């Protein structure tokens, strides 16, 4: 099971998926991102510190959210992935495109 908590920050929001981000829970994340972009947010920060597991469909969802954010003229940034999540990011080389930041503050920085 996964829940997504949402917190507004300047220029955007922080989404924190809690639990397992898998093929079953990705629609929830995608819908949330779509809703925030529609509401005018441009910077989508995904805080992964509470995400215990991501499968490749979860990574795929992060990529499609990145695509939506970019097409809305915004950006999507990853923050503080757990061990397992860092590993799959490395395994697929996705970290070459989405380099995670250490903290939400760092993600807001640039």
């Amino acid at each position, binding site marked *: 099971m996964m829940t997504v908590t949402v917190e507004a920050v300047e220029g955007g929001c922080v989404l924190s998926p809690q639990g397992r981000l898998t093929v079953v829970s990705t629609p929830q994340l995608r819908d949330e991102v779509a809703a925030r972009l529609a509401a005018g947010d441009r910077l989508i920060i995904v805080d992964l510190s509470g995400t215990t597991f991501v499968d490749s469909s979860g990574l795929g969802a992060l990529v499609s959210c990145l*695509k939506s954010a970019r097409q809305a003229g915004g950006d999507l940034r990853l923050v503080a992935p757990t061990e397992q999540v860092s590993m799959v990011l490395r395994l697929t080389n996705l970290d070459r495109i989405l380099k995670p930041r250490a903290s939400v503050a760092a993600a807001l920085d640039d």
Partner: protein
Amino acid sequence: MTDTLSRRDQRLLDRTTPGRRIVAIRVAVLLASLAGLNYIVWRWAASVNWSSWWIAVPLILAETYSVIDSLLFGLGAWRLRERGEPPTAPDPDGLETRVTVDVFVTTYNEEVDLVMRTALAAQRIRYPHTTWILDDGGRPEIRAAADAAGIGVITRSDDWADRPRHAKAGNLNNALLSTEGEFLLILDADQVPKPEILDRTLGYFKDERVALVQTPQWFENVPESDPLGSQAPLFYGPIQQSKDGWNSAFFCGSNAVLRREALMQLGVSRYVTEVEAAVRRAVRTSRKLLVRAREEAVGQPRVLEALDDAETVVERARAEFAAGESIGDVTYRFQRSIDTIAFRFADADLAAMKGDLAELAAMSLGPDTFDALDEAALDLLAQRSSSPLAAIESISLLVGALDVDRGSEAQAIMPLATISVTEDMATAMRLHGLGWRSVYHDETLAIGLAPEDLATMMTQRLRWAQGTMQVFFRENPLVQKGLSWGQRLMYFSTMWSYLSGFAAVVYIAAPVLCLSFGVVPVQAYSVDFFARLIPFLVLNQLLFWVVAAGRPTWRGQQYSLALFPVWIASVTTAFQNVYRGRALGFSVTPKTKQAATGPRWDLVRPQIWAVACLVAALVLVGIRYATGQAEGIAPLVNIAWVLFDLVIFSIIVRAVLYPGPSAPHDKEQS
């Protein structure tokens, strides 16, 4: 799933060919390979008739081609893997063990009845699953029939409008993003599955490294004599089993189960690879593009000024990329800076326009008349696309490429490969490159419909061959880093086999020239020659016979020569497509018979010419014998050769005259 791996399952997962059979195969491989090498080395070293080089060289190249073909066949067979009984499927009743499965029936334009026949059979598959019809035609009739049967329909999302559709690969990629099953059974519209298909295949996935289980394609509407060579008993059998032994059994588009996780992982890593390649290319060509942009902008001082700014931004991106910064960050800053330039110019334009509007407003009666217009203008100008930079084609190209959204594609993630019209093989090769395993399970678990006339059959073969050659030209297996050498050679051997068309031309021309004009491409038709050639021919057939183990192989051998114009066209059109960007002239294989038009001799003109030449050669050599011009063993060898060619080509006559199966294909299943 590994927790439940019983000892029996483990044993079945590891099982391979029984000892006696593999020993027999290996002996035959060794003998055939040695005989082949012995022959071809002697041919090169001692028997090329260089004085007739113009035919001698093509002939020895064709013969070398055939020996290599035989060696590759032997290499595969060396590790031929017969798996037998599959491991048991994960228990559908256990909460922990249960897996979720989506069954995809793919269709584009097949008749509703045909699609529904397959979909209803898919619904009746025993293992718990969800059935979907992937209707690429988006037809209301399909929707209605599926609704009535309680079957889901997936059509392309709006993202695909005005973007490349990528045929069946696109259809599957679209469905992957709107379903959730851990495993996917893919079925062509005509492939009616048996109820046990999942029970017999899911067990292999207990090995967590397995990404694909492929089962045979078998066709019910084909008579015993199989005049169109529709059944592929050697391919769906020993050849896939050979590949399986080297962990390179590949996906054939239908009757296969795939692991979603493997496909999605492939999709994500391909996304990274392709974005990186596009950005690298854009960075590399950026200077050239800027020069071109300046040429386009000559005489437009405002645009030239903007280009100066753009150049600074591009140079910064180039430096950041070279320094190894993350592509997301580099492209984001780049896009924002381009936007800034655009906004600045828009502001200037706006200021000018506002001035004009104010003047107009002052002249008009109502003070609010132009407010709406003003707003609209502001909106329009604030968009990237209306900036003066966007008007420069080279710059929009650059801006489009220096991004991570793959904006030209409907989906950023495309798990099924789109580099070829045969997405299946290309996808399997990429999965193998990522370290995934595949399984070939040799049991007919779905029954399909083959083309019923020559024209359709030839279209289908051309498409397969073109697709394979596209993969060869785009992602040559010999240089794919993630593949082992065995895997590289197994993929390569499939591609190699499609080059047979060129060899066939030589095998027709050489005896014709010899008999008609006495041109002798081989220096000595002597004991030396026969002592090497005959063992090779005999042992090669023996290898075939041992490997085939009773499966019919003759039809396949005939068509690999008799369809030579198709094979040649596939290579040349795929080459033109990959390197010159020309269209393939590709069409979807119709699953049902085309309107009757009578025998289509026009489809096989090159073959008719070949047969005419072969027969004429026999007549000419008869005349030469009568006039005492022909003597010795050379004409005899070539007469035998011509007769063999004629027997091969006889299948073409049968195929043209074939009226289709006697029973209607949609007969009741008992």
